[in-house]
């Protein structure tokens, strides 16, 4: 299937000579949730802003729905809704007015019923007559989302949508984003919360210093790069790992009260059976056993360190 967003060989150098994007190529598939992960200053916002028309592209090309973002800007931009990173909005307008304004700006005839639907889905309906400046930060963030959804876009960009949003609201937003995806909207989000990418994304792209390091299905990424840890809590602490167990690559933790084995969960033979057999042979008594999958965050930090 043709990708809904196709970025090829995109580079961007800002006026001050800073090269924010280096030969970036990236395809986003229709209907997926794509999470763009990267440290501060990696170029996430620059990338999004180019696709949305806020920043002039340098070299390379960007196609949205098969149309070029420069030559066919009307087509591409009306497909896109953008929730920017900064909370900037018209403080003196009412919620309803500012969301209706966005719909008009994107070329759609007014449709109060749709605006109502959007506001209700974001729990903003009660606030519709309030001036934007009287809202809390989290509500303002939701108003920005409502503005982006006002013209029924096929693609939604969320540039750090949950920055400064409390945990409960964050979960609500995730649910809303999933609901949108279920209606066929393609979602591209950037985030610093790896937890968010892990929870939400179908695919993950990692960007660092203006380069895309990796693009992968989240599940594949977790499986291939994800190490699993087996943590064995001992009844009696050990002073050292017995020599007969060294082949298992164990580490001692918690002042000898815990044996930790790191293994590849996707391997055919994980060696766990042999490990337990050897433990029994040594007469080491086990109090408890726990396994832990490494998080996307650990994978991410690992990847960045590898390149550093």
């Amino acid at each position, binding site marked *: 299937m043709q990708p809904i967003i196709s970025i090829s060989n995109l580079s961007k150098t800002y006026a001050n000579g800073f090269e924010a994007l280096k030969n970036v190529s990236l395809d986003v598939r229709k209907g997926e949730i794509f999470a763009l992960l990267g440290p501060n200053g990696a170029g996430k916002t620059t990338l999004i802003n180019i696709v949305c028309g*806020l*920043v*002039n592209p340098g070299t390379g090309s960007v196609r949205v729905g098969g149309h070029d973002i420069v030559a066919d800007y009307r087509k591409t*931009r009306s497909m896109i809704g953008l929730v920017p990173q900064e909370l900037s909005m*018209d*403080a003196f307008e009412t919620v309803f007015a500012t969301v209706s304004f966005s719909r008009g*700006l994107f*070329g759609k005839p*007014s449709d109060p019923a749709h605006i109502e639907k959007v506001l209700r889905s974001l729990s903003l309906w009660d606030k519709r007559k309030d001036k934007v400046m009287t809202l809390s930060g989290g509500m303002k963030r939701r108003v920005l989302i409502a503005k982006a959804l006002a013209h029924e876009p096929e693609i939604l960009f969320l540039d750090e949508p949950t920055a400064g949003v409390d945990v409960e609201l964050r979960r609500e937003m995730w649910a809303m984003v999933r609901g949108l995806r279920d209606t066929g909207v393609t979602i591209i989000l950037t985030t610093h919360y790896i937890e968010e990418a892990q929870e939400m994304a179908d695919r993950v792209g990692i960007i660092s210093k203006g380069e895309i390091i990796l693009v992968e299905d989240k599940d594949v990424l977790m499986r291939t790069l994800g190490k699993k840890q087996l943590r064995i809590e001992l009844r009696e602490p050990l002073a050292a790992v017995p020599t007969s167990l060294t082949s298992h690559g164990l580490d001692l933790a918690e002042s000898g009260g815990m044996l930790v084995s790191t293994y590849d969960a996707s391997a055919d033979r994980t060696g766990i059976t042999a490990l337990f057999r050897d433990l029994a042979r040594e007469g080491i008594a086990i109090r408890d056993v726990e396994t832990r999958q490494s998080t996307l965050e650990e994978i991410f930090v690992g990847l960045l360190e590898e390149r550093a």
Partner: protein
Amino acid sequence: MNIHAVRAIYRFEMARTFRTILQSIVSPVISTALYFVVFGAAIGSRIPEIGGVSYGAFIVPGLIMMSILTLSISNASFGIYFPRFTGTIYELLSAPVSHLEIVAAYVGAAATKSVMIGLVILATAALFVPLQIEHPLVMLLFLVLTSLSFSLFGFIIGIWADGFEKLQIIPLLVVMPLAFLGGTFYSIEMLPPFWHVVSLFNPVVYLVSGFRWSFIGAADVSVWTSLGMTVVFLLGCLAVTGWMFRTGYKLKN
């Protein structure tokens, strides 16, 4: 053509105008009234007729022009500068609207406000001096053309400015002097020959002159020259805005 967008921006800008209606309308009315008291009544009573009309009636077109120039510039420059300042411009830049549509909406709204206020000032003036308007349609034409040109000029300033001082400095340093020296309070015929020639380089002279012609049927320069110069100024501003948008000047990185 994204007519919904033009309408949305226009309505938004007009709503902003009506939110501040008191200060938008009251302040020009008061200042015009003051001008009439000082120049029309106090000083004007000692000045003979100019161009066959009383001094009070003579300055009406000039006063309206002066208000319109400053208002168009301040209103249009603020209209586009404010979204840049607060960051809400992101929405405009990401929307499927052409440069021309953006300009049409912002400048159209600013010009509408100017024309409205021009008419209010005209009505205020009618309370102080007996008004005659020889060519009402030409008067309206000049009112609209001037409002449009200077709103466009203001729009350019609003994009060029990167601080509130810059927003104020052009109206203060350039437009006010040009307006005062543009024959608002006198006929440039009254000037010594050298200054008369210098005045002909002042675009405001043509605006005031043409506008005055529509009132009293007499003017410093031919009404066609006035009209021509106004249109030239309008086209010049259009060209500059076109260039600004094409290059993303101060709008896009």
